[in-house]
């Protein structure tokens, strides 16, 4: 029945060894994990995961400094708002490549989509920690939609877009699993998913800003503006582009053995810097319109005004100029540092809107508790570790040998 064939030279490795342990045996793999980076990550999680359990067992009051006056802390300002803004690289790059046909950026689409997916995933985890009743999270999706609430749009967009990002990332997963038919099917959906993803991102990046339209008396007038949904959307593009510059530089250094050495990482960074520079330039003037529209000029000469100017000049205008200079003169290092600075600036902006300039006139100021900070760091560490785990296994930075064109999907 079975025809005698030549025996393989070496016994085939088990599926787990091949797919999960990077071709090593379990013990070899476990040994390879003992690195300083993993030690630090492990330490953060060893403290952070019990803290998360503590928060879910004993509640928000025990774990956080949130109150009825200050119901939103850094889990919203940092984990959710900043996380979602920085995940915008997924839709920005997918649109640039699949819709505008800018083939040059093909090589960074997969890492950008993966960063987007993980950014959203961990933003949702952060949200689950922040919600008083996280078990009610599926309610607006399953029943009791609550259509008139701004939360309705946010909930639906995040659920749908998280799904879209996951589906956009299916081709590398199927390549890794060795399922060519499923991969073909997933690749065919690329354009449709990209279009859908742009729609959803446009809707909910801005609707996260629209949340604050409901707090005109709580948010400082310099940050409050009817244009705030547009601010959130425009700045998310700059955030996404900067994040891709930072992330591609770091990952091509950290995963040298994995990365495709033909990828022109520097050229891509300079091109993205051009885009980010122009977006930030426009963003600066749109923010200026908000000040003019609200007639807030006099407030610039107050302590909050100085802080606002730091954001406007230091984190918007300055990086715009530095990106422009770096792109024009091909200063890749300058562009990378500027991108990191812009990422920081976006985090500062989201924290300003949701925490720092929120309830600015209330004596009861919110300062995050140790547990809130540590849990946020834990979530970031989990995100970075997941990114590493995936990049080390799936064809993200490099094309799969069986699908040499795969980095194009």
């Amino acid at each position, binding site marked *: 029945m079975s025809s005698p064939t030549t025996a393989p030279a070496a016994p085939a490795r088990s599926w787990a060894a091949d797919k999960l342990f990077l071709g090593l045996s379990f013990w070899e793999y476990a040994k390879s994990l003992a690195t300083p980076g993993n030690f630090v990550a492990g330490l953060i999680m060893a403290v952070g995961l019990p803290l998360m359990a503590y928060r879910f067992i004993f509640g928000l009051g025990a774990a956080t400094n949130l109150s009825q006056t200050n119901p939103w802390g850094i889990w919203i300002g940092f984990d959710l708002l900043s996380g979602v803004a920085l995940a915008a690289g997924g839709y920005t790059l997918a649109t640039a490549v699949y819709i505008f046909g800018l*083939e040059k950026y093909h090589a960074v689409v997969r890492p950008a989509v993966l960063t987007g997916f993980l950014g959203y995933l961990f933003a949702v985890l952060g949200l689950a920690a922040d919600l008083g009743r996280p078990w009610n999270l599926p309610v607006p999706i399953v029943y009791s939609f609550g259509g008139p609430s701004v939360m309705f749009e946010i909930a639906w967009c995040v659920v749908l877009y998280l799904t879209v990002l996951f589906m956009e990332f299916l081709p590398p997963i199927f390549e890794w699993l060795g399922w060519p038919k499923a991969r073909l099917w997933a690749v065919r959906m690329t354009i449709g998913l990209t279009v859908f993803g742009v729609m959803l991102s446009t809707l909910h990046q801005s609707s996260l800003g629209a949340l604050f339209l409901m707090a005109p008396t709580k948010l400082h007038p310099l940050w409050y503006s009817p244009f705030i949904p547009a601010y959130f959307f425009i700045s998310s593009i700059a955030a996404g582009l900067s994040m891709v510059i930072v992330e591609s530089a770091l990952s091509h250094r950290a995963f040298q053995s994995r990365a495709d050495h033909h990828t022109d990482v520097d050229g891509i960074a300079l091109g993205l810097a051009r885009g980010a520079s*122009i977006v930030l330039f426009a963003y600066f*003037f749109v923010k200026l319109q908000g000040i*003019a529209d609200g007639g807030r000029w006099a407030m610039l000469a107050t302590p909050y005004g100085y802080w606002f100017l730091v954001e406007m000049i230091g984190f918007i205008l300055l990086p715009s100029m530095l990106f*422009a200079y770096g792109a*024009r003169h091909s200063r890749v290092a300058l562009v990378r540092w500027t991108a990191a600075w812009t990422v920081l600036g976006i985090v500062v902006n989201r924290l300003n809107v949701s925490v720092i300039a929120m309830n600015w006139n209330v004596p009861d100021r919110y300062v995050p508790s140790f547990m809130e900070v540590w849990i946020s760091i834990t979530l970031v560490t989990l995100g970075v570790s997941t990114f590493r785990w995936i990049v080390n296994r799936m064809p993200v930075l490099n094309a799969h040998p069986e699908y040499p*064109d795969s980095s194009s999907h």
Partner: protein
Amino acid sequence: MIPHDILTLYSAKMLEYGIAVLFLLLFIPFWRYVQGPAKAPAFARAAGRVPVSRAAEWFLTPADRLFHRGHAWLKGGDDGLVVVGLDDFAAKLVGPVSRVSLPAVGAAVGQGEQGWRLTAADGRSVAMLSPVDGTVVELNPALADSPGLAERDPYGDGWLLKVRPSRLRANQINLLAGNAVRRWMEEAAAGLRGHVAPGLGALAQDGGAPVAGMARAIDPDGWDRLAATFLLTAEEDDHA
């Protein structure tokens, strides 16, 4: 009482219009600054020996050229002009050329529009697409006496035109460089292999150099139409 003039109606509005106009005025120089000086493409500066890869082991594609899908190349020079020619694939596809009909000096050429025409000894001809928008400033004088140069040395003495590009940056989006060239040439070679199968199997499988005038070898009677298919000018010829 303030007169009801549109500009004094609401001073904040006027300021907003002012900011919008200021933005637009500043945006133009800013955009130009960010996009950098209009320089010849960087690949033109690659000096000395240029690596040549044999895509699909058949066709030469020097790394210092940009390629258009109609099988034409262009190369930037320091003088702001670009040199245009046909690629090795087109040369081997069409084979010996008896006449190259180039546009006149001063004529406008458009990317993806018919640029010139190659005529073979049998009188049949095939059109090719220009890889760039611009104005023709010089024709290769050597081609008048020996049109065969275009086929024998397509990347060297057989160049066709010098063009002053009008929108090189926009054109570059549609041009191929680096790995994309290799991939595209492999596709072209694969497409050719599909046609080769009936009568010319030995050529493809031997891995030897392809014969000059592959199109004629494949289809002696309809070679011009076959070549036009690969050079993306089949439709234009139908209308002609």
